[in-house]
């Protein structure tokens, strides 16, 4: 401890950061990883009257309409509003988790 006082101490993770080796959240890739995308209303304070998800359903494994909460592959997704497209996973009933 005394050897550190009054001396500059390098950040413990500075080497990883300066070489680009440190993994940030968006740098992780795991086997079978699910990807989700939240589509929000382009209109502030708009009301969703209708969603035509037929095109999305044709290419994705799961399309989940919120508001509410649901799980996919054991992960929590909390959606205050909007509309989610989740490849894989099992949606639960909105609001059924908490």
């Amino acid at each position: 401890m005394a050897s550190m006082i009054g001396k500059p101490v390098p950040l413990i993770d500075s080497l990883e950061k300066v070489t680009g080796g440190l993994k940030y959240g968006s740098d992780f890739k795991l086997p079978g990883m699910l990807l989700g995308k939240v589509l929000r209303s382009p209109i502030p304070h708009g009301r969703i009257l209708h969603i035509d998800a037929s095109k999305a359903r044709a290419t994705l494994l799961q399309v989940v309409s919120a508001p509410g909460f649901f799980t996919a592959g054991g992960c929590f997704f909390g959606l205050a509003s909007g509309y989610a497209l989740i490849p894989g996973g099992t949606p639960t009933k909105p609001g059924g988790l908490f």
Partner: protein
Amino acid sequence: MNSVISLRVNGQDYRREVPANITLLEFIRDTLNLTGAKKGCDNGDCGTCTVLLDGKPVLSCLMLAVEADGREVLTIEGISRGGELHPVQQSFVDHGAIQCGFCTPGMVLAAKALLEENPAPTEGEVREAIKGHICRCTGYDQIVKAIKDL
């Protein structure tokens, strides 16, 4: 539509078939798994996706992978060799010019390109060289000192 591109990344030659619409950043991160270049804004505003293309800094989020055909790309992973930090990297460490580290790869590469062209930049020239790089920890002073002291 896919195209076959040949390029050199960090000294290694790659030949890959890529969709014509993926960016150089997506190619580097998702195809080559080099995640040192970050996707910050994906809009050309933040600078953290910077790589060196034939020695010059470019925003890889604003460039298509197919545009890099036949070119040489250097990413942050490619500038330290054999466990030795590049002098710019060492200076960033020594000056504590790193906080969260998200902007660091882009800053280091911008600094490297600047110093190769201008080995003794003024403070103004250093600030000019990193002006497209946003550090949200706001640690600019240490970064400028780290580059200026080289």
